[in-house]
């Protein structure tokens, strides 16, 4: 099973970067892709993300979400084509030959354009966050955010939320199997579907609550929240961090005038 958003242990370029550099990277990338409406620029950003991933030896891992990306892209484009018709008509979602409903839902250049922009932004963001999460060991994140003065509780909340995604997936699957063996019926119709969720969701949530109690006790007893800290093997700002920071600054410096001139 592909493990969603889990840290991958490696010793490659992105792993060696300081978490702070990577946070700056995400911020810059997010701002740029959210401001830009230029297709060519956004495509360039996607390519840049892939180059980053490949350089960090994480390309395979980051492409694991490809299926999700493709499905979401199609949904985005469909929604914008249907809801934001604008500009020239290229064709119709329902072919004109069909009687009565033929010619409904025009596909317009404007709708497609917005759809593509949204999709590309989405891809860039997913890539950037994913690269950050799978290349940053939670312990390093704890160090960095601790130094930045963020209360440890928030950091722990964040890393625990991520850490237990696969655990819940596996647990959900086990529960599903146990209920299937009892003749679990996935239900028909909208109400039926919702009702049929109970035998899966109730055990999942009850067990998770029980588990969260043990997690809480474990955290307290190991003194993660109150113990006196010594940071060992802490990542230090190295030359590569300065290099990446410099690249980010240059990118921003190039981006701002182009943005003001409304080129991108």
């Amino acid at each position, binding site marked *: 099973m592909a493990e969603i958003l*889990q840290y991958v242990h490696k010793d490659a370029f992105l792993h060696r970067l300081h978490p702070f550099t990577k946070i700056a990277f995400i911020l810059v990338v997010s701002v740029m892709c959210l401001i830009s409406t230029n297709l060519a620029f956004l495509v360039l950003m996607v390519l840049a993300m892939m180059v980053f991933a490949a350089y960090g030896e994480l390309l395979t891992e980051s492409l694991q979400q490809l299926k999700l990306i493709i499905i979401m892209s199609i949904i985005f484009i469909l929604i914008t084509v249907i809801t934001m018709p604008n500009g020239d008509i290229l064709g119709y979602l329902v072919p004109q030959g069909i009687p009565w409903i033929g010619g409904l839902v025009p596909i317009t250049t404007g709708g497609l354009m917005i759809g593509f922009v949204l999709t590309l932004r989405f891809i860039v963001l997913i890539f950037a966050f994913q690269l950050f999460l799978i290349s940053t060991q939670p312990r390093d994140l704890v160090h960095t955010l601790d130094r930045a003065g963020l209360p440890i509780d928030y950091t722990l909340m964040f*890393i625990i939320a991520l850490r237990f995604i696969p655990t819940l997936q596996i647990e959900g699957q086990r529960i599903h199997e146990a209920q299937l063996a009892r003749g679990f019926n996935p239900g028909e119709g909208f109400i039926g579907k919702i009702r049929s969720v109970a035998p899966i969701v109730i*055990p999942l949530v009850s*067990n998770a609550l029980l588990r969260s109690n043990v997690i809480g006790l474990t955290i307290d007893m190991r003194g993660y929240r109150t113990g006196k800290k010594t940071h*060992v093997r802490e990542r230090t700002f190295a030359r590569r961090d300065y290099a990446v920071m410099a690249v980010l600054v240059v990118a921003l410096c190039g981006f701002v005038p182009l943005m003001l001139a409304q080129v991108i």
Partner: protein
Amino acid sequence: MIELKDVSYTYPSTVQPALHRISLSLTKGRCIMVTGPSGAGKTSLCLAASGVLHHDYGGKKEGSVIVDGKNVADYRSLSDLARNVGVVFDDPEAQMIFTTVEEEILSALEHRGLTPEVIEDRLARIMRTTYLEELKDRSPHHLSGGQKQRVALAATLALGNDILILDEPTSELDEHATKRIAEILKNLKQSGKTILLIEHKFENFREIVDTLIIMENGAITAQGIPDEVLKDIHVRGMVLPDFSNVQKHPMAGAGNEPVIQVENLTHCYGDVQALSGINLTIRKGEFVAIVGENGSGKTTLVKHFNRLLSPTSGDVIVNGKNTKDHSIAALAHDAGLVFQNPDHMFFADTVREEVAYGVKNLAIADADTVIDATLADAGLTDSATLYPRWLSRGERQRLGIACVVAMQPNVIVLDEPTTGLDGYEALLVINILKKLQEKGHTIVIITHNRDIAEHCADRIITMESGHIISDSGGA
């Protein structure tokens, strides 16, 4: 090191005390093992001794708990207490918060106010004592339950305290993993650690246990040197259950028609071959035990019986139906599966509704009579109106079995039905299964417990890395 004087405790929102006038004294370098039926208050005792009840739970407390010469009430917080007491819980998954083994232990070491040199030194030592050196970069999702439990133990040792409390650390583990834990505890005890151990598997820990405590209904009913305590017949039956009186029917299946035929079954998860070329025939009325280490393919095999898994190649024929041609729901009439953890199935508000769920799904005639009879057989008639999750582990296990039995499948398959149970509870489960066998059901159990396999099953199938390596029935 730990002293409990007349401790009674009642959880908030309950009336019945969970602990009743408990007194015990654990001195430095000694090991106390506490055992007893599920729901007897063992976990509460563990929480009381570690000060968790006092600092985290509320509820009604009486008596005093002294840890390292100081009343738990006088410690500032749990973290403060944790400098003296380390606790390992029974759920290995919940105790691993970080993403690699080394990171987990290192993180625990980083919150002790130690110097970096001491941390590195202690890390290396702990990795060695818990045999985790080779697994240091593994993520929690690539560790077995036993390995995870060793990580939890290691992270607890990282705290550097002299008192260790372990709440059923081996309940989810197989024989091999249990032995590993026992070996580690033995070394820890030799190095001077004080250990309070909640366990069912006395045999594995016999060597290190100085005092054996039996708990029942929230109170201590026996306490002393193990050999003395075990002279009592009642205690013996609980701690060292004797299954040799269980009636066997060696010829039970002879001449009967086959209910399960597995032909050349191979199953692959991705690139990993979990089963290779399995051939097996189980006849009506047999009581079969499947044994083998974790990962040998036992669970993968039985999941084919009701098509939770489909063969990569080969055929599985249950009750004359090739599973390929039938849905899981249709096969539920033929083969019922009870999984290891009963908590994976409970969602109803009462025990009765829980049992009724499967019965309704299969539209079984005369549902009420069937449900009542099943509850009676499982010894749960009195609990019918209770909330399933309030039951003790032993009762939940029987409820899990009842849920499947009520659906009246011909073949009943149980994955580790005696996990976390004391001798009497295990025997109760076995007797329920024996009764089902007499009624004509075919029983297949997966078990780590050699005793149960040898004394209760008519036939033992041993699996190893996806193959059947021995089969006492050999049909």
